């Protein structure tokens, strides 16, 4: 039984066709899987190994190398706190503690209800808006305690 429905399989298949060599679509395909499942599982990897015609070891190496991909599911909202130098100077550590308190979890963890997960990230390229957060795909610069409180409130 596949880890994906028919529609999803078609999307993944399209990544094998997009670039000059089929394997070049792997990272994008993994991004897609991470988006659907909020992680990349053993079954997902087996499927991709078959789809891209490479050994499972290759898929697992790529899936465990890049920070975007996780083995365990992230929350529906993945919050990343930038800990680059400029953001650190602007108080990212305090921002992290603030979020940990608000969400009731430690950095690296996911809330019990699956709503939020919290992680630190390396420089997000938003040093001019330090301290910066990445919420799923969205960059939130100049984060403050108020902004954070509002976010936690709004995001379901």
């Amino acid at each position, binding site marked *: 039984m596949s880890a994906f429905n028919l529609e999803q399989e078609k999307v993944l298949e399209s990544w094998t066709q*997009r*670039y*000059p*060599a089929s*394997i*070049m*679509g*792997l*990272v*994008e395909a*993994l*991004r897609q899987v991470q988006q659907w499942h909020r992680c990349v599982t053993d079954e997902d990897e087996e499927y991709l190994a078959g789809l*891209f015609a*490479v050994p499972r070891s*290759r898929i697992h*190496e*790529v899936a465990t*190398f*890049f*920070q*975007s*991909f996780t083995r365990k599911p992230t929350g529906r909202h993945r919050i990343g706190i930038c*800990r*680059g*130098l*400029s953001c*650190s*100077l602007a108080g990212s550590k305090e921002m992290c503690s603030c979020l940990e308190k608000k969400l009731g979890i430690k950095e690296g963890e996911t809330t019990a209800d699956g709503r939020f997960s919290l992680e630190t*990230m*390396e*420089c*997000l*390229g*938003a*040093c*001019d*808006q*330090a301290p910066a957060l*990445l919420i799923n*795909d*969205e*960059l939130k610069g100049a984060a403050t305690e108020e902004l954070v409180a509002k976010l936690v409130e709004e995001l379901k």
Partner: protein
Amino acid sequence: MSRPDPLLTKHFDETRLHELETFRRLGGYEGLKKALAMGREALMAEMNKSNLRGLGGAGFGAAMKWSTVIPEAKNPGPRYVVVNCDESEPGCFKDRVLVTRSPHALIEGLLIAAYAIDAQRAFIFIRGEYELQHRILQKALDEARAAGLVGEHILGSGFSCAIDLMRGAGAYISGLDTALLETMEGKKAWPRQPPPFPTAAGLMGRPTVVNNVETLSMVPHIVLRGGEWFAKLGTAKSGGTVLFSVSGHVEKPGVYEFPMGTPLREILAAAGGVKGGKRLKAVIPGGVSTPVLTADELDIPMDFEAPRAKGTFLGAGGVIVLDETADMVMVAHNIERFLAHESCGQCTPCRQGSFWHERILERGLSGGGTAQDLATLERAGENITGKVICALGDTVGVVTRALMKKFPEDFKAKFPERRG
């Protein structure tokens, strides 16, 4: 002394600069038109005169790189241009700003580069966290395709080039050219060890030019106004202007464009000086990989040559300003922790050495440091530098030693002599 017009940021007050119509109205894609008309030889002649250097950090001559691509006649088959938009060096955000504000400038420069090396396919590799920029580029490419600027027979010429986007997945090392190619090939981002260089065998074994966003954005200006003009804007060996990302303890963080060779002091002043009027303690000039400068060293002209006299370099122009409250041990720890986290793991000195640095500095920050650790850091740094596969490893050994050398008091405070 009057400063010449900026090139890349000139029209940044135009809120719709990212749209094709606005971009064209302001002269966009005229460079492409001229390049196609003048032909490859004339184009390369201008590029050779321009002294355009790689603005992603390495400073390698752009024309030199393009000219090492073996011509189709001798190596039939595809060749590629890959745009490195993986900007992940802490302190640098100029590519983000360029792509957000002026995606068509990049596309235009990219097409000219593709024309120069006869590449019919190009890729823009963009870091996974820049999702907004990814959408902006998608839209800009759609516009360009619809207008016959990308795809078959560009502007009715014999030159065709398709452009594709690809996103990264959260690894700083993907920003190194050969590691970027590995990522594009669906592998871990472990840098290669040339030879062969990418222009001989790059993406899928084919000749590939990898260039930074900013570098390519400069190209249309060179075409339009000539390589000599571009070169004269800068210094003897570094042509044109360059973007500085200024952040940290500064009044007006942001992107500032200056001619090559502008003193660091002037860049700082343009950004409003130290925030809250505090005393300046240090400046990191080109992103965290570049050795730190003291407040007394701000007269350095910022190009690819002059900073070397002070033991540092231009890098990718990420200027991080540090005021009197900044502790250099904390800075060292922040950077080494970053490098340890981002080390790809391929070679032992970087993989083990970065984590070693991180732990020693952490111990210093939490009160367990001793003076002996400073000797260890010095020796470990020397052990690593020059023994590694790529520049990330070299950085591990260099940055802490530079901070130790310039700010010994901070280190003595966290790593005191201990009795007993």
